[in-house]
């Protein structure tokens, strides 16, 4: 299978790999399942003003899944929660030039953002 330059770049040099220390300012989303071949864990750290100031990920999955989550950590930083929620799988797939069989990786990344935001908001209630 041929990978796009951008997928290869994110795969070779993944951005923001790691784990954020869990507290009230951190939202964690974990989506996917090992049996399906991919699990994404995305964490966001949100400032008092409601801006995402840091993001980290860990992903078990194919190169496209790793690239999708790496890209998303770059994109969410500096955005408000509502802005981050507007990142759609189509944007991710387009940016990374994912082939049709890999669209599910971008869907998973979108789901991961939503799950992280949900987790953060539930802590704030």
């Amino acid at each position: 299978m041929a990978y796009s330059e951008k997928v290869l770049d994110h795969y070779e040099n993944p951005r923001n790999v790691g784990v954020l220390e869990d507290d009230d300012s951190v939202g964690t989303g974990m989506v996917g399942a090992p049996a399906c071949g991919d699990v994404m864990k995305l964490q966001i750290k949100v400032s008092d003003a409601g801006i995402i100031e840091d993001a980290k990920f860990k992903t078990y999955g194919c190169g496209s899944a790793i690239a999708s989550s790496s890209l998303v950590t770059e994109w969410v930083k500096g955005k408000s929660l509502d802005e981050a929620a507007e990142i759609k799988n189509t944007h991710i797939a387009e940016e990374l030039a994912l082939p049709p069989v890999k669209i599910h990786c971008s869907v998973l990344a979108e789901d991961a953002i939503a799950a992280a935001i949900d987790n953060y908001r539930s802590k704030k209630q």
Partner: protein
Amino acid sequence: MSDIKLPIYLDYSATTPIDPRVAAKMSEYLTIEGNFGNPASRSHEFGWVAEEAVDLARQQVADLVNADPREIIWTSGATEADNLAIKGAAHFYKKKGNHIITMKTEHKAVLDTCRQLEREGFEVTYLDPEENGLLDLEKLKAATTDQTIMISVMHVNNEIGVIQDIEAIGEFARERGIIFHVDAAQSTGKVEIDLERLKVDLMSFSAHKTYGPKGIGALYVRRKPRVRLEAQMHGGGHERGMRSGTLATHQIVGMGEAFRIAQEEMATENERIRMLRDRLYNGLNDMEEVYVNGDIEHRIAGNLNISFNFVEGESLIMALRDLAVSSGSACTSASLEPSYVLRALGRNDELAHSSIRFTIGRFTTAEEIDYAVVLVRAAVEKLRDLSPLWDMYKDGIDLNSVEWVAH
């Protein structure tokens, strides 16, 4: 290490390069300067010379497996040999019964042929292997009925390299008067085959797994006691009417020469290959959470199939771009399907996904193996650093207790 040519070929079970000695022989049977004749031409020298070459090759193939050359039928490969054997015998003996027994870990050439027979009204039992990939003879016996006309069990498995006890299965089949077919595509030149002793009725061979050309193979059809087949390819009545079609002299000559070399060199070759395989195994075995798939004793020398837990298979293959190896997940298909062979062993999906099949062969060197070890270790480490599952494992979380949000 600078003199290593990348990528390193470690996929000898997928196919092998043609041995240069084989290629040289084949090229003598192509052009106007060579022997290009049709072996079926009886009226002139061109035909006679070609026929002689085919006869010699038939003898060479028969010699490797201790058979009579009259028991060798040329086909286009093991796929066709499997089809001819299974459909041919099922159709011929259908008045005796309609039940066939095979295993879930067979090659698709056997499984899909059996599926076709099911559509025609035959009944097929697909036996599970034991966890080590081997067949439990008692389970085979238990599955046999008075309707059973054929048993098809492969000699060496293409994914995990385990060797089935075809001697014991053959004894049982003969005793019960059941036709026994063996797919031996992966065993020629790797395991000794003595068809005078083994009670095998039909055996499929392929040239390109044994340093011969692709597109040629053979089916062994026992003469004593005689096994009958219904032809699947009709035409000029070649190969005793069992397989029509002009014989591909150059391909056949190539298969013959490849099998001759295999017979001559297999003892020393397998010893060398086993040392390389053990070198690879020892280079990886001390890592955490690695699992060998399939029995390590009853296995051909050149195969190591190993799973790296908490690492996803396709990303591993991507990280190992400098190694030509096979993965346990078929990532070409839309849905990531873990290997049905590993599934049949009872491996969970994660371990099946993260498996790599290394197959070592005639042209593999110790330097290549050492380099492969370095690459694999680095790739697994990198991907585990990226893996949330690895973190959870390290934190002592049981992944089976987690409620996953599947998509």
